[in-house]
């Protein structure tokens, strides 16, 4: 299990983090996502053997936001 921080662009309102966090349900291997509108970032706790950084970034992109490793 690793915990990585990603910079997230496109969160233009306080409710946007809720949508970003829904990738918890999209991808197996993600234990927890904590996104912050105020900080413009998300912290993802995931199993590296089940899901990759690239998959996480792609899942966030599907919701209309851009994630970058911090």
């Amino acid at each position: 299990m690793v915990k990585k921080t990603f910079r997230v662009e496109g969160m233009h309102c306080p409710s946007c983090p809720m949508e970003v966090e829904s990738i918890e349900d999209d991808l197996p291997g993600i234990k927890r996502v904590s996104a912050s509108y105020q900080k413009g970032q998300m912290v993802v706790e995931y199993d590296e053997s089940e899901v990759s950084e690239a998959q996480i970034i792609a899942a966030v992109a599907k919701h209309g936001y851009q994630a970058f490793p911090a």
Partner: protein
Amino acid sequence: MNQIIVAFITGLTTGGLSCLAVQGGLLASSLEQQLEQQLDQQLEQEIAARRIHRAGKKRPRMLAHPKLALPILLFLAAKLAAYTLLGFLLGALGSVLQLNSLTRAILLIAIGIFMVGNALRMFNVHPIFRYFAFEPPKFITRYIRRRAKNGESFFAPLFLGALTVLIPCGVTQAMMAVAVASGNALQGAALMFAFVLGTSPVFFVVAYLTMQLGARLEKAFMRFVAIVILVLGLVSVNNGLNLVGSPLSFQNLSGALFSSPAASSQAVSSAPASTLLLSATNSGYSPKRLFAKAGEPILLNVVTDNTYSCARDFVIPALGVEKLLPQSGTVPVDIPAQVAGTVMRFSCSMGMYTGEIIFQ
């Protein structure tokens, strides 16, 4: 009764938009699941329609817009219930807690700063303004997502609507202060009910339109909302400054900057008096400028005639005077001797209507 009507009108005119700035995020969160489900349904329908079309059959009618009216109504209903209960509690507390004009002024200025900060956030001026927004706590958003996943899609609007009671917007806080000042549980409940009911039509229309409009129009519309909130915020700060008799309020600054020689000569020719007459009307105080004799006690008679506006709540911050005037009548106010050159400002308790007494 009049106060309740005023509360409703306040909600209708200013409360709706200012509340949306603060609570709009919660509403959007509550509609998140709704929107996703509707969009998924739309996508399925689109795919099915294309299959039918390719098979040479007639294209069925498409689901045009997501069904948002009901969840928004549920959100507002829950908000109304929560705030009415809060009004009841505040009114009951009112006899114990009394907000003086200084506290109210601080509240108005703080609210105004909060609203201005929110407007600047909506304009994307700088990331620091993001801290003026309220993000629902994580345990709540997770709870809602879980409940929504289980098919309880109306849970979110109801729950979050009730939760708005924890993040009252600027104008709501001012109304809460009025509820406390009423010192009566039923009156407090009625005031909050009327106010939140007043905010609901604007809240509903703006929220519904914002969801329906395309991204581009939504952006333009939200900019308009941000401008309105910016103006309301500045007005609130200004009212707070008036309430403390600050020379920095817009009215006092412009009065000092733009007082013409003609007005000054008029000031000299209007003989300062020992007994002054001031009318508190529905559109403010008249005259706005009075001239009093320096060095001796002054009697100020404040007259009302079917007055129901904020002007009835008369405040002289420098003397700590705060009087609730009768709807019709004359109330004497004793002013101790002042040195020549003193400018004594007065206003209503919301800092909206102002005036001054100049001692010569």
